[in-house]
């Protein structure tokens, strides 16, 4: 765990102005063997963007196919492979890695005032494992694809499916390992690498969220890893674990699977909460309201999240009383999320709100995540869940949470930290337009799916010619998906453009608060010229200058 191939870093460290991490070595080797968390984060950004693009293409195919009750271009066999590919890529290769491995990797050490993560080589290994997982995935896809659904339910996945299950399972297994390595790094870094004066309660809320996420990853991911391994064993050696014909229990798989995969929902959304906390505080230019409440609610979610997996199994033949317990805990886990929403709203109150593009994404998050979270109540409410489970209602619900929540927050965070990562400013107006188009496109895509679900349209259905009443909503949904694609595609263009002709960003283009804005943009290899000493509280916007702003604003208002 040394500075391996950081090139000339050591020599220039002593000079006054260290080169930025982007200029510190230009060879491909200096990127591929880097130990620098910022470069690894950039590698991750490129990888997850790639996977997101592939997953989105699959989503587009699905939407296209569903405009006609009897399909348009795909066979059922292909369609099943397409939606499985969409699910596996988006869950294991985009959402789990999206915020922690990119924004988290880049920002977390800077935010706590460290030179790097605790184990840089482990961090690099994590990226390589991720790439290896991607290779396995492509072997699976190019070898004919997988048709089990991303949930790999047994005994279909273990004994019946004739597709590339083993490769896909192995891909998910490796992707899980890569997230464990990142999480281990985060935990150690937060515990032991904080700068002098950076007490636990001075940590930015993004760090709290990343920490809580890491705890979930460390505790949950090994379970899914071993579960998926057991599926492979059952497939390869006919080990009777999940198949009843051999003496196994198919529902055991569901328990083990959701023991990870429900907490995994929080692995995806908690970092998003962290990003939103940053955005709301910094663009309201005010200390966050209820800092402790938000920080502890992240930990509460991480803890409670492990005891609600059974709400995926209300109708799977688990005991009725088991279901009752899981239902009541599911309601309890909703409370910390509600607390966050209220606290963010209260943060904006009496703030100095700057409606720049990252804030627009955050506002979009509010609308979509609130609907996504509240429709979760329909599903933890056991009575309605009997009807709604596994229908398009579920599909709509988790897309509201995952896309409306996690992806909106990821894009918001990317807009917010883009100047820090690249040192360039992008076109803020385009950013706002993109956020708006995404918001409306998203609602048009997924709101009709709530109705579809209540009408009874089951998820993972290729044909619905026997129920033509569903078609109108599918057509609406596909229309919305085109807007969604436009909204989410736009950033690719103006971000790329900013790299070539974007204005140079100063250290703190947003006037935000936090250690990451005290270093140059982009930061030097070791993040700071010298180890920062933290003296002020987190989000401690100077009340005097804010008051001054306020007074000037009043005067300006008076002049008009």
């Amino acid at each position, binding site marked *: 765990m040394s500075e391996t191939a950081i090139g000339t870093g050591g020599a220039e460290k002593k000079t006054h102005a260290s080169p930025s991490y982007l200029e510190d070595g230009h060879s491909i080797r200096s990127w591929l063997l880097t130990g620098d968390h910022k470069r690894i984060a950039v590698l991750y950004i490129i990888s997850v963007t790639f996977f997101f693009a592939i997953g989105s293409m699959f989503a587009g195919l699905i939407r296209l196919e569903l405009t006609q009750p009897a399909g348009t271009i795909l066979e059922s066999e292909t369609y099943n492979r397409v939606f499985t590919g969409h699910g596996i890529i988006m869950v294991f290769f985009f959402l789990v890695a999206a915020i922690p491995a990119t924004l988290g990797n880049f920002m977390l050490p800077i935010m706590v005032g460290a030179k790097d993560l605790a184990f840089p080589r482990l961090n690099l290994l994590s990226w390589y494992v991720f790439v290896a997982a991607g290779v396995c995935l492509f072997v699976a896809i190019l070898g004919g694809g997988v048709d089990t659904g991303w949930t790999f339910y047994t005994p279909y996945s273990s004994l019946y499916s004739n597709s590339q299950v083993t490769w896909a399972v192995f891909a998910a297994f490796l992707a899980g390992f890569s997230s464990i390595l990142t999480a281990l790094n985060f935990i150690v870094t937060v515990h032991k690498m904080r700068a002098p004066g950076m007490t636990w309660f001075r940590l930015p809320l993004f760090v709290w969220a990343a920490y809580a996420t890491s705890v979930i990853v460390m505790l949950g991911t090994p379970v899914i890893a071993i579960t998926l391994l057991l599926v492979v064993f059952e497939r390869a050696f006919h080990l009777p674990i999940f198949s009843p014909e051999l003496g196994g229990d198919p529902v055991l798989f569901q328990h083990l699977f959701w023991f990870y995969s429900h907490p995994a929902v929080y692995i995806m959304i908690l970092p998003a909460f962290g990003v939103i906390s940053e955005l709301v505080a910094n663009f309201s230019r005010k*200390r966050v309201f209820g*800092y402790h409440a938000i920080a502890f609610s992240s930990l509460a979610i991480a803890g409670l999240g492990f005891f609600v997996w059974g709400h995926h199994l209300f109708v799977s*033949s688990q005991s009725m009383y088991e279901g009752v317990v899981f239902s009541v805990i599911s*309601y309890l886990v909703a409370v910390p999320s509600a607390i966050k929403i209220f606290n963010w709203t209260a943060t904006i109150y009496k703030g100095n709100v700057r409606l720049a593009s990252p804030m627009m994404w955050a506002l979009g998050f509010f609308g979509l995540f609130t609907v996504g979270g509240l429709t979760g*109540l329909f599903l933890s*409410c056991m009575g309605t869940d009997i009807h709604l489970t*596994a229908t398009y209602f579920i599909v709509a619900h988790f897309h509201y949470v995952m896309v409306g929540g996690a992806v909106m927050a990821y894009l918001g965070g990317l807009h917010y930290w883009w100047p820090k990562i690249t040192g360039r400013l992008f076109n803020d107006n385009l950013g706002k337009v993109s956020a708006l188009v995404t918001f409306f496109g998203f609602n048009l895509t997924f709101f009709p799916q709530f109705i579809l679900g209540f009408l009874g349209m089951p998820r993972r259905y290729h*044909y619905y010619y026997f129920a033509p009443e569903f078609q109108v909503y599918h057509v609406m949904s596909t229309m919305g998906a085109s807007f969604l694609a436009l909204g989410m595609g736009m950033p690719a263009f103006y971000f790329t453009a900013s790299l070539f002709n974007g204005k140079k960003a100063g250290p703190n283009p947003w006037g935000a608060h936090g250690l990451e804005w005290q270093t140059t943009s982009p930061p030097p290899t070791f993040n700071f010229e010298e180890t920062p000493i933290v003296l002020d509280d987190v989000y401690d916007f100077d009340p005097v200058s804010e008051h001054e702003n306020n007074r000037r604003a009043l005067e300006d208002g008076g002049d008009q």
Partner: protein
Amino acid sequence: MNFTNFPIAPPSASTFAPQIDGLYYFLWIFTAIFTLIVGFFVVFFSIHYKEGSPADRSRPLYEHIGLELTWSVIPGILGLVFFYLGARLFIHMRTPPKDAKEIFVVGKQWMWHIQHPNGVRENNTLHVPIDTPIKLTMISQDVIHAFFVPAFRTQMMVVPGRYTDLWFTPTKIGEYHLFCNMYCGTQHSEMGGTVVVMPQADYSEWLKNNGMAVANLTMEQRGAKIFSSIGCDKCHTAEDTIHGPTLNGLYGSKRIFTDGSSAMANDEYIRESILKPHSRLTKGYGETMPEYANDLTEEQVLLLNTFIRTQGAIPAGTAGTTSNLTGAEIPSSGAKTNKNTAMSVNADQHGATPSTATPTIQKGKLSVGATAANEKNQ
């Protein structure tokens, strides 16, 4: 009730439906109110406190334990209320009454086998009497499926290696969708069918007649069912269409083919046209019809043949006799045949008048349930 083009709820056909719908709409109202409140405050604050606005920002608040408690406890209590309502309903829905009538269901890729206690079997169609508690005891033969009837607002997984159960009391006569709601492989989306709710008297009658609405079907009635279930009637309607020629008056008529040759439409020709339609194409038509050589058994072809014959050279409605290929009794009256055919095809539609049905069966009347009848006849 439902909008014609934008349905917002499935038909409500069991005792559970009003209860679930009540809870569902209640939750939507709650969701709407909550979202509007949050949305209003977020947007209002963002605009009111926009940078440079002359709003009052004195004495900002950063921590307030009272507020935190308020907005933890109130959602917590509301959550417990929803939990109570949901759990009460769930326990009711998962506890079958003792006097429920039991029907057995076996799921397999990609078909539902259903067996009534008196031995009547059906595939992909479930006939149940109205206002009677029904308990389904279910098991899967291969992978996990789920038995889902949206109109009854209930579903349950069908798991291999163990029995699961599902109960409901139908309250409205009609035909409703039956879906498999747990992904089960290639044809998952087509593993569905129909649940038919019948008046109790009709149901008893139906059970007594071995699952037939009236009596045992004749050969051409069975042929008619196949005709509609595999979708022949989509293209071969009462008139020639661009999709296919009518079969009315086909039997015994002279056919002219694309290569200019011609032949008499006899049994051989009909069989060949079903199994290998492209070998002799009727003038004016392309190779649009699928080949059924691998999909139909000889028995099914025979039944189709007997049905197509009755659409024969003699115009419908005129009495006439047809040659008796198998020695089975075939009614000699074309009119009578029409009526019987119509009734049997629409046997599911109790209470509906079958008078509009023609032997070629209305277009679009193809229900998945008909597949079941087809299976049953094999």
